[in-house]
């Protein structure tokens, strides 16, 4: 573990860098953050030493930077300042630094108070108005550029404790402006929801002073966080967890003792942290578990509380301590740890000065007493009494030197002496020494010094003693001033000089205190600037000396006068005395006799005492013999220990050998791991390579597919040589096929169709001059059709001949045909304009009128029956020798659009306009609804339907261009697809059931492959020519369009390709290849 890590900071607060060791406060940190997020300002109050500053700098700030404090921008600008003597300047300096602005400009702006701070922030490079930004990328960019602003006014009570900020119950303009700025900023931030947050930390005993700032008490009521005392489990965390984080540990018994002891302390947390810091050092930087013995070694626990083993260790250690340190162990307690530490530093200060202060060349002039005086004056300068409370007082190095006021004690000397209290292990006086910054050892004379924490004032007994003396000195000084003032006000009359007793008292005070002008100025509580205070103090110093001198002179003069009178009295007294002497001599003689008797008695007594003494001496001699025997025993013990030591050394040598063996092992292991790492890297590299190859192949495949598409498109263009079209279409087909392209790719199909049509000069076949109403194809080569005038023809496609079918007797078609429906190759229904239905038999060449109704939307013939659908009626007819008889009518609520039957002619379905499907049981003449349509809206209505060859699916077309596929058995929609923005006119399955063909009013035919229903279909566009009818044969569709023309298309691109190939007579030339393929692939030929 790193020796330099100390997870306890000591007396000072945790810094941001030490946040990782700040434990026990997670709940409080979260509470403050929640409050800040809601209210934008939090005033953190608490007793001295409650941990306010640590909570903010080591708690809230790191959490904010780590992203646990949610605000607008991704980063934070932390403006932290202390009021000290010039709050507005301090705020401006830190704000300008954080926002990269000029200090002067910021200061001049902030002087106006109110919204000035908000304006400075908003005009900086770190604020962006995000509410208008729509583009998410831009928003993200600005969020990362901007920064939220957190302003921390630490040690807020300095607004009240520093006379520059607050005097005679009133704040200075500077102080008032600063507080106004901060409060207004909080108000505006809340109103406008700006990412600005403000924290004050303040001692709670200054809350009542806050009334001096307008609005501040209200804010305290609005958003205050009073730092609570830590609960037991939180204290335990604060004690044990930092050690764990740093790789050490704290014993539970130590933890319990500390918890119990700090509860009685007035500065629990600073004392605790300081103690733990010391224990960590004593435990060899945490290499040993922190335990009770370490506390004892720091004078924090009496040795009697230790177990036997630890007791012995402690006693042996204690024996070696210097005598002057032993006295600090007389009253061990937790607060005594700090006392002991401070005293050790005080005792060692002279030695430290001699060894560590290179800038003072001649150290011989400085004595130990001088160093002690310097320390005393320094700490007295750094403290003062304020309304009965011991508080810190910030003072410069120069001011301390002036207070000492001795010519050989310069400020360099003072710097060197007090450095022992600034070292990292001590940190009693701020600024601290940073060993990484050598310049921090020597500080300029105007550096402001400060005590780290008031806990030092309350727990260092020597300092308390000095404070007490100082307090007495100050009280005496104040008393003296009253007397002096009276004398000065009365023209320095002798009646107001000091009497002897009082004079002696004040002369002792003067000798003790040695008040110089700096000391006097320190206790000047007026509002005057320091220079003027000093002048007044100088005058007062002179007056003090004069007053004392005058008083003394007066007393001496009075004394002389009294002496003369006393001489006269003396002579008279002598005569009286002589007379009295005579009498006295006689009395003396008698007294002498009595004395001799007494002396005899005394002699006897002394003899008895001498005898006693002798006996005592014998006893002591025996005692010494005993001690000698003990010494011999101790010597024997020492010898034993030496032998043990030798044994330990041998063990250590063994251990070293073992360690070396382990190191060698570890190195071997390391080498193995390096090899494994290399293997791992190699595997990953291989994986990467495979992935790259795959990716490259895929890219190539996609390139070729894309080329195929491009060739297809080019195949639809006109070239001088039709062979080019054929070649383009065929190569497109080949590339698509060879590279796993979609077989029914629309572009490939179009290219093939176009090239083939061009090569074969395919054009539509005009069946008749008149409009053809319907057609039927019994086979691939025969077309049956009826024209508008009712004539029926056959057309032989092979012979390219049309033949009229004559009837034996003219069937009475009175008008043109309004609708024609071929039922099969023998029967058809023709409807004239009046609505008469004719059943025409092409074999017998007869016809029968069997109905009078609007033209059927659909009709179906099976066995001897005929089903027709007309409007909302489905009619079953029986046919017998051209006699047609109505069997039954089925009436529906909606129009019937389609009658469907399976290939075995067993199951019948009826589809209505709403999309509802009924199953028709002809045997029982019963209809059952098997699927309920929900297409009542006009544009949703079903327009067409077809049944799949396997009888499982009905494809339904709708007026809004939708096609739905319905599973008959489960009675639910399997799939749906929107084809066009207009009606689906016709929908039919092909013979295999794999394709679905639709016709739309825009005269396009779409061929869907059901397995890839949502892929782009093959589309055949017939331009502006209306499609009247469509018939599907096994591998072709025939389309009746242009009123009387017929055209056919293959359903499968393979069919086109196989027909194109024989038509290709040549290969691409090199030039053509370059033109169409470029350098994508190497040329290959298809014609050998």
């Amino acid at each position, binding site marked *: *573990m790193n020796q330099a890590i100390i997870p306890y900071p000591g007396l000072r607060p945790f810094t941001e860098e030490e*946040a*990782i*060791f*700040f*434990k026990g406060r997670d709940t409080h940190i979260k509470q403050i953050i929640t409050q800040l997020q809601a209210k934008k300002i939090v005033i953190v109050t608490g007793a001295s030493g409650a941990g306010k500053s640590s909570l903010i700098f080591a708690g809230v700030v*790191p*959490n904010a*930077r*780590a*992203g*646990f*404090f*949610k*605000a*607008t*921008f*991704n*980063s934070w600008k932390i403006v932290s300042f202390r009021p000290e003597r010039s709050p507005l300047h301090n705020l401006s300096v830190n704000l300008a630094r954080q926002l990269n602005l000029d200090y002067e400009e910021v200061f001049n702006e902030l002087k106006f108070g109110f919204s000035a701070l908000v304006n400075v922030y908003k005009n900086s490079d770190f604020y962006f108005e995000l509410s208008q930004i729509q583009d998410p990328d831009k928003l*993200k960019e600005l*969020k*990362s550029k901007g920064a939220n602003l957190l302003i921390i006014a630490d040690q807020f009570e300095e607004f009240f404790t520093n006379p520059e900020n607050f005097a005679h119950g009133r704040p200075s303009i500077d102080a008032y402006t600063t507080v106004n700025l901060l409060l207004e900023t909080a108000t505006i931030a809340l109103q406008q929801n700006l990412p600005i947050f403000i924290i004050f930390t303040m001692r709670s005993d200054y809350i009542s002073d806050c009334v001096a700032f307008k609005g501040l008490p209200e804010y305290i009521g609005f958003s205050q966080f009073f730092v609570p005392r830590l*609960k*037991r*489990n939180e204290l335990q965390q604060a004690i044990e967890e930092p050690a*764990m*984080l*740093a*790789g050490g540990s704290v*014993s*539970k*018994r130590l*933890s*319990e*003792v500390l918890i*119990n002891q700090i*509860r009685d302390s007035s500065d629990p947390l600073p004392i605790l942290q300081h103690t733990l810091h010391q224990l960590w050092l004593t435990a060899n930087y945490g290499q040993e578990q922190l335990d*009770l013995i370490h506390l004892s070694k720091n004078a924090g626990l009496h040795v*009697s*509380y*230790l*177990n036997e083993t630890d007791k012995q260790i402690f006693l042996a250690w204690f024996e070696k301590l210097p005598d002057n340190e032993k006295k600090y162990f007389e009253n061990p307690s937790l607060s005594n740890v700090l006392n002991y530490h401070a005293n050790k530093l005080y005792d060692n200060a002279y030695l430290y000065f001699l060894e560590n202060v290179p800038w003072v060349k001649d150290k011989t002039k400085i004595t130990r007493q001088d160093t002690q005086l310097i320390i005393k004056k320094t700490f007295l300068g750094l403290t003062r009494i304020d309304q009965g409370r011991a508080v810190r007082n910030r003072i410069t190095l120069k001011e301390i030197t002036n207070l000492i006021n001795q010519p050989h004690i310069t400020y360099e000397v003072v710097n060197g002496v007090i450095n022992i209290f600034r070292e990292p292990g001590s940190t009693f006086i701020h600024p601290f020494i940073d060993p990484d910054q050598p310049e921090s050892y020597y500080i300029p004379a105007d550096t402001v010094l400060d005590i780290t924490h008031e806990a030092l004032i309350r727990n260092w007994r020597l300092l308390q003693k000095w404070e007490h003396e100082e307090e007495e000195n100050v009280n005496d000084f104040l008393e003296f001033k009253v007397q002096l003032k009276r004398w000065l006000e009365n023209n320095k009359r002798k009646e107001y000089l000091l009497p002897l007793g009082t004079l002696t008292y004040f002369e002792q005070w003067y000798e003790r205190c040695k008040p110089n002008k700096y000391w006097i100025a320190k206790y000047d509580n007026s509002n005057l600037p320091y220079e003027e205070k000093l002048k007044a103090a100088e005058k007062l110093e002179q007056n003090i000396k004069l007053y004392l001198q005058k008083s003394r002179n007066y007393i001496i003069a009075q004394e002389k006068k009294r002496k003369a009178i006393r001489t006269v009295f003396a002579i008279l007294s002598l005569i009286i005395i002589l007379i009295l002497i005579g009498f006295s001599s006689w009395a003396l003689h008698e007294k002498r006799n009595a004395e001799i008797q007494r002396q005899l008695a005394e002699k006897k007594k002394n003899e008895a005492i001498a005898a006693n003494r002798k006996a005592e001496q014998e006893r002591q001699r025996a005692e010494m013999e005993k001690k000698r025997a003990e010494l011999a025993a101790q010597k024997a013990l020492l010898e034993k220990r030496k032998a043990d030591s030798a044994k330990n050394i041998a063990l250590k040598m063994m251990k070293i050998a073992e360690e070396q063996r382990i190191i060698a092992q570890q190195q071997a*292991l390391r080498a193995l*791991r390096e090899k*494994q*790492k290399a293997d*791992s*890297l190699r595997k*990953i590299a291989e*994986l990467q390579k495979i992935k790259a190859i795959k990716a490259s192949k895929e890219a190539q495949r996609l390139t070729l597919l894309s080329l195929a598409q491009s060739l297809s498109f080019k195949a639809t263009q006109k070239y001088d040589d039709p062979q080019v079209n054929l070649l383009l279409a065929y190569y497109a087909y080949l590339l698509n096929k060879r590279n796993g392209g979609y077989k029914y790719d629309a572009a490939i199909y179009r290219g093939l169709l176009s090239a083939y049509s061009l090569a074969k000069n395919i054009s539509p076949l005009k069946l008749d001059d008149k409009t053809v109403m319907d057609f039927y194809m019994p086979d691939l080569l025969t077309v049956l059709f009826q024209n508008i005038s009712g004539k029926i023809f056959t057309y032989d496609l092979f012979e390219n001949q049309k033949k009229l079918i004559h009837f034996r007797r003219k069937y009475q078609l009175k008008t043109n045909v309004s609708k024609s429906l071929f039922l099969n190759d023998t029967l058809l229904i023709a409807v004239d304009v009046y609505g008469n239905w004719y059943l025409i038999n092409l074999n017998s060449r007869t016809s029968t009128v069997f109905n009078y109704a609007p033209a059927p939307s659909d009709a179906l013939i099976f066995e001897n029956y005929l089903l027709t659908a007309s409007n909302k009626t489905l009619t079953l007819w029986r046919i017998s020798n051209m006699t047609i008889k109505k069997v039954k009518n089925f009436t529906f609520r909606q129009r019937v659009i389609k009658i469907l039957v399976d290939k075995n002619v067993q199951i019948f379905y009826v589809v209505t306009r709403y999309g509802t499907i009924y199953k028709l049981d002809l045997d029982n003449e019963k209809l059952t609804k098997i699927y309920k349509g929900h297409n009542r809206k006009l544009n949703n209505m079903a327009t067409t339907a077809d049944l799949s060859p396997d009888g499982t699916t009905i494809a339904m077309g709708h007026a809004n261009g939708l096609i739905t596929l319905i599973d008959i058995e489960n009675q639910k929609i399997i799939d749906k697809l929107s084809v066009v923005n207009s009606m689906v006119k016709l929908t039919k399955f092909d013979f295999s059931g794999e394709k679905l063909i639709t016709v739309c009013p825009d005269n396009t035919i779409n061929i869907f492959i059901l397995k890839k229903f949502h892929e782009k279909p093959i589309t055949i566009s017939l331009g502006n020519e209306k499609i009247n009818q469509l018939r599907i044969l096994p591998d072709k569709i025939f389309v009746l369009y242009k009123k009387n023309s017929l055209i056919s298309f293959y359903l499968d691109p393979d069919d086109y390709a196989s027909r194109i190939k024989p038509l290709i007579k040549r290969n691409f030339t090199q030039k053509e290849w370059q033109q169409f393929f470029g350098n994508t692939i190497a040329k290959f030929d298809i014609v050998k």
Partner: protein
Amino acid sequence: MEEHLVANINAFLATTSSDAIKFFNELIGVLYHAQISYRFIPENESIERFKHKTNELLNLTNCSIHIIGDKYEPVEALGMSKPEFQYYQALKHLKNNNEYRIFIWRPAHYKDLPKDKKQREFIFNILNNINENIIYSTHQSPIMLVEDIRSIMVSQIPAKFDVKETEIYLIFNEIDEQPALTIKDLLSDVASVETTSISLSSDIDYDNFIVQQIKKSVLPVIYFKKATTWANYFIKEIWRKTGGLSSKKTFLLIGDESNPENKNINFSAPNVQKIITSEELIPLEIKVALDNIKNKVQV
């Protein structure tokens, strides 16, 4: 907040010496008013019954309270005083029940150590053998003791999140989301990866969730490209929340060298591996770090 859990405290009040009876009686009154249930053995029980009842009550409770006075008062049949006997029984019970708590109260009224040597030894024994489940207090008043008991016995269970076992747990700031997701995609081929994007505008309580997810991960990785400052603070907070050096978890802090600021990232700890490297090598380094951890586990 703590009221609904007070009912779960069930205390065994150990017998105390005659000089501490008044503290015993005060404590009963406070426990009653704090609505904490308690049991104790009456004065006049036989020794056999006393022994039997002690063990029985220890089994029926979830904590014991022992008030230590100045007098020892040994009982011949026990070989020691009653309080001392019950204390040792409580220690034995603790060995079998890790959730049990023992509260020792030496009231502040007793400023010095007892004159009775045996009692002194008993107290030293207690002090020198305190462990995780023993709490030693010197409070002035039983109210303070009961406040401590409540705060220790009422444990605040943090919200449990639905976290998954994973090999790599990738955490990044939302401004680095794009490159981070690319890294995730590449790593997903070779290891299981969970991710969390830290967004300041989100409502998610990240710190508890992340701590729990880290516990279920083999290798937590903090990735950064632009969010250097965030990464520097984030790793500190997360390292601290997961136990720092005392945790066995190895963290990987990995940054993209294309941002020159990333070289300034300054946090270091023995269980945090820090790498700044080119974008292409980042997934590789993460995989290597993961393999090293797995190999260590196997070895």
